[in-house]
């Protein structure tokens, strides 16, 4: 006989599903990403994300399911900018799912990390557990000014104060694609379900599809030797896979170890670390030139941008 406690333990086990019906996966080719933020805007429009304003932004209460993180390679003036679009990784063994006390976040049969708004009580534990910092809390009930509320997407809930939210891989589009496929009694074809960010990407850096289908575009991307996942060492098994930037190393040599050996798993992991973690640490002395302070150096870096 299984007690409630046993059941809880079973559901709490990370990777509750051993296989998925569809395994929705995203591949982001960092070599193609130009950091134009078209995906960010598309996400904002598709998923009814509020514009929180300058004040709340400064308090760290921004709402961006998808953001472009930037990292610097090398040192000014021989510096180079790298972009990483960061969104919910839909980890197969997600730390947030273990954390939620009310099962508002769980893994479904399609390999999606679900967030159920009406079940969420807003403890914000999941955001603390998330190593990717991609969960956002509604501190207020946001409103839209007069004509703007007309462009809200009716397929997506407008969230209220007190619930957590995050990227859903545009589940409304996935559901729609599955619905159309069901009419013809077939599986969803490759490219039929596209999240807003993948659709908006001008360089096709973001590819979305079903990993279970070996012929899909995303499955082929996964076979690329450049593929790695962010913070792999945490064993979260993300559903978002990044394809490493394979540009020529900088002359300065700050990132030589990063681009040196493609097969070195450590090097591939470090592609996702901030610059100061892998090349040099601006806070420790050696990389600084005489008379410089770390803050000054950051300012210089910002000027390049």
């Amino acid at each position, binding site marked *: 006989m299984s007690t409630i406690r046993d059941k809880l333990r079973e559901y709490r086990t990370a990777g509750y599903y051993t296989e998925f*019906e569809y395994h929705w996966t995203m591949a982001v080719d960092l070599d193609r990403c130009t950091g134009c933020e078209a995906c960010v805007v598309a996400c904002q429009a598709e998923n009814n994300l509020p514009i929180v304003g300058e004040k709340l932004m400064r308090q760290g209460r921004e709402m961006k399911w998808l953001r472009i993180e930037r990292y610097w390679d090398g040192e000014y003036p021989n510096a180079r900018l790298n972009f990483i679009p960061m969104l919910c990784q839909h980890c197969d063994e997600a730390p947030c799912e273990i954390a939620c006390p009310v099962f508002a976040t769980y893994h479904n049969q399609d390999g999606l990390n*679900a967030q*159920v*708004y*009406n079940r969420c009580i807003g403890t914000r534990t999941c955001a603390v557990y998330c190593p990717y910092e991609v969960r956002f809390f509604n501190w207020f009930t946001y409103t839209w000014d007069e004509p703007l509320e007309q462009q809200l997407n009716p397929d*997506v809930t407008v969230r209220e104060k007190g619930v957590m939210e995050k990227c859903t891989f545009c*589940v409304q589009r996935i559901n729609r694609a599955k*619905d159309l496929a*069901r*009419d013809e009694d077939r599986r969803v074809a490759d490219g039929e379900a596209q999240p807003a960010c993948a659709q908006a990407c001008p360089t096709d850096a973001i590819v979305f599809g079903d990993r279970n289908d070996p012929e899909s575009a995303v499955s082929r991307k996964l076979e690329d030797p450049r593929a790695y996942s962010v913070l792999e060492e945490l064993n979260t098994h993300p559903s978002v896979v990044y394809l490493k930037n394979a540009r020529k190393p900088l002359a300065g040599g700050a990132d030589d170890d990063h681009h040196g050996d493609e097969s070195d798993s450590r090097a591939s992991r470090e592609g996702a670390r901030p610059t100061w973690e892998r090349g040099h640490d601006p806070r420790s002395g050696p990389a600084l030139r005489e008379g410089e302070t770390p803050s000054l150096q950051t300012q210089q870096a910002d000027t390049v941008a």
Partner: protein
Amino acid sequence: MSIGVFEAARSVIKGLIIAVLAIIGAYIGHWAHGAILNDYTPVQPIEFSHEVHAGENEIPCEYCHSWAGRSATAGVPSVETCVGCHKGLTEVRDKPDVVKLFDYWERGEGIPWVKVHDTPDFVHFRHKPHIRGGVECQTCHGPVEEMARVTRRVDLNENLRMPWCIDCHTEEDVANGRDCLTCHY
């Protein structure tokens, strides 16, 4: 002999707490009575009778609610649809509600119908899969063809609350029918 000030205050506070609780209880009770425990029959801008249209004249549901089989929403017919038939029906042209209809038509306005069967914003009920699965309209909406004014009946569908959905999804063994993301996203 006299009662101390503090003791008197204590009893006053006790009384106040009971009063506040009673008021809160009354509020909750009133809300539950209206929202959950009772039928809901709003008055519509035009006394449109489903009894006459769908019952006596046997117009199929999807003649007017034509989007039910192919989209998420069943849709409310446009004024044009109403007028399209009623232009030819000169014998009922003088009924007060038909006169109202033609007033809307002449002003070029939509009719502000009151939604009876409504789900919260975080529920994405889709008509299409249900029609595809062979669910009758009456299963959720009740015997509309017998209603002069449409009612959401609590004995029939528990006022569209989730346990009622889940019961059916479990019984009919719907694919992914109990996955939250099927309806909540």
